[in-house]
């Protein structure tokens, strides 16, 4: 059983502060991390290999050349192989262009049984790419997986629990399958010292679009976008003083009078 973990390098949103806004954080040279949700994907990929008869974990990323750092984290955690898709033709691509390149790379890697990603990326947050990869590859998608209940390698199927808004859905899926995972799935391991040393020296394969047989013209998005900072809502805070009982009474009166409740 071969597993591919999709790993995205994202801005480190924990660094946002009153002196570093969103646009500044997106700029070159600002701190980058492995998309936090993808750490859970890497962890479960490694567990699938180590506990469920998997053979190989490939960490696959698409991004600028510096995204190799995210792949090195994957290698340091224990992935067997890492591949970066990087090409100037992908610079302004959308989720669909990203999914097309990832799908082509997954085909090229070949023989993947489980493709796993985090539930969404912390930057774009559209949760679109895994679903689009599944659609393009004609594979089932099982998203928001909170627990792997059964991995039946011989019967080529999985039973998983999904965390949805209204409760937990138990689903069987046949392999190959694309899954996305939520935090409950497993606690990501810390890379070991040896792992980090090994990862620092490990070769990372880089594929350009031509290596995937893709024409950059076919990946041009049918949309344009511009980014700006949200307007800060000017809220004048009305402080309500008094004893706790007085504060409570005054607040409820205001909420009811202003039909907020």
């Amino acid at each position, binding site marked *: 059983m071969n597993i591919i973990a999709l790993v995205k390098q994202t*801005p480190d*949103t924990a660094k*946002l502060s*009153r002196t570093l806004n*969103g646009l500044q*954080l997106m700029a070159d040279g600002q701190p980058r991390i492995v998309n*936090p949700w993808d750490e859970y994907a890497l962890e479960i990929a490694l567990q699938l290999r180590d506990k469920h008869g998997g053979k190989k974990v490939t960490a696959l990323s698409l991004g600028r050349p510096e995204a190799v750092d995210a792949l090195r984290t994957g290698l340091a955690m224990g992935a067997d192989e890492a591949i970066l898709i990087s090409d100037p033709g992908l610079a302004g691509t*959308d*989720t*669909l262009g990203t999914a097309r390149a990832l799908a082509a790379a997954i085909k090229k890697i070949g023989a993947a049984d489980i493709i796993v990603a985090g539930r969404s990326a*912390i*930057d*774009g*947050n*559209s*949760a*679109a*790419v895994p*679903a*689009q990869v599944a*659609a*393009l590859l004609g594979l*089932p*998608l099982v*998203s928001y997986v909170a627990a792997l209940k059964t991995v039946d390698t011989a019967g080529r199927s999985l*039973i998983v629990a999904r965390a949805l*808004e*209204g*409760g*937990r859905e*138990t*689903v069987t*899926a*046949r392999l190959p*399958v694309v899954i996305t995972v939520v935090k*409950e799935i497993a606690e990501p391991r810390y890379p070991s010292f040896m792992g980090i040393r090994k990862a620092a020296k490990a070769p990372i394969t880089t594929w350009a679009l031509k290596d995937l047989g893709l024409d950059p013209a076919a990946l041009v*998005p*049918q*949309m*344009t*976008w*511009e*980014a*700006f900072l*949200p307007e800060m809502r000017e*809220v004048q*805070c*009305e*402080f*309500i*003083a008094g004893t*706790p*009982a007085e*504060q*409570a009474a005054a*607040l*409820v009166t205001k*909420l009811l009078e202003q039909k*907020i*409740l």
Partner: protein
Amino acid sequence: MTNDILVWIEHTDAQADTISWEAMTAAAGLAAGTGGAVRAIVAGPSTRALAEAALRHGAASVFAAEDASLAGFRLEAAGALVAGLITAHPPAAFVAGASLRGLELSAWVAARCGAPLAADVTDLSVANGAIIALRPTLAGNVISKVTMPGPSTRVISVRKRLFPGAAEVENATGDITPVQAALAEDAIGTKIVGFEPAAATISLGGARVVVSGGRAVGGPDGFKPIRDLADAVGGALGASRAAVDAGWIPYAHQVGQTGKTVQPDLYIACGISGAIQHLAGMKTSKTIVAINKDPEAPIFKYARFGLVGDIFQIVPALAAEFRKRLS
């Protein structure tokens, strides 16, 4: 190509989810801009009454697929149905609610149809045939303005509680057109074998009121008064990451960048200082009330009302007051 807007009616056992009528409002707004009609898609067995409800909520017509393979929600089955309808009757746009299911349905359909996608949008407009969407990115710290010129089909999912639910009229006419499922059962790679509903607490996502506790709550027991206030006001219980990471309350309650994004009518922040990562998940709430012992806490910059003091005194007093006044 038509100027019509296709809208997905999400439901649970043939009962419409609130977000469906919000998506209907978004679709109606787009249809007004494109000069087309809103056509709804209703999928699943025993959904005739739901199809009629879609007409009463503003759909000009409904595509109704009642095949048993469309029971529950399976992405491949639903996606292939929608992609087939888009190919057969190309609309100006397909709109779904940005629930977990709607997000993946819209993404899947966009990939199958080669269409541009704007996910989880908070605002929509039409100008010269282009659809313009606003969507928050980077945990709400950056807004992306997406312009999709068309004319080919554009795919959009709309964020919860940003569009008002479409009003229901009593008498509505319109065709309900039966359509076949696009996939045979054996072509679908998944089966739903069980569903265990979450405990009967109010879920954060659709809540009109959210009461959250932060670091100052101090421990698991400290959440008792916070939970009691949430009960008193009929709201959902939230928490900051600090409280979740400390193990005082399960992750399902986390509001913020690595938790849930909420936009209730009323958000009551108890003992939450207002880190940017928490604000990302709640600052679009219509009214924010902050209770904190530190008058300089950043949360007060976003709050409409501020109560400075000890949460362990104010929160119970507030619960009692709500019980008295709301009964």
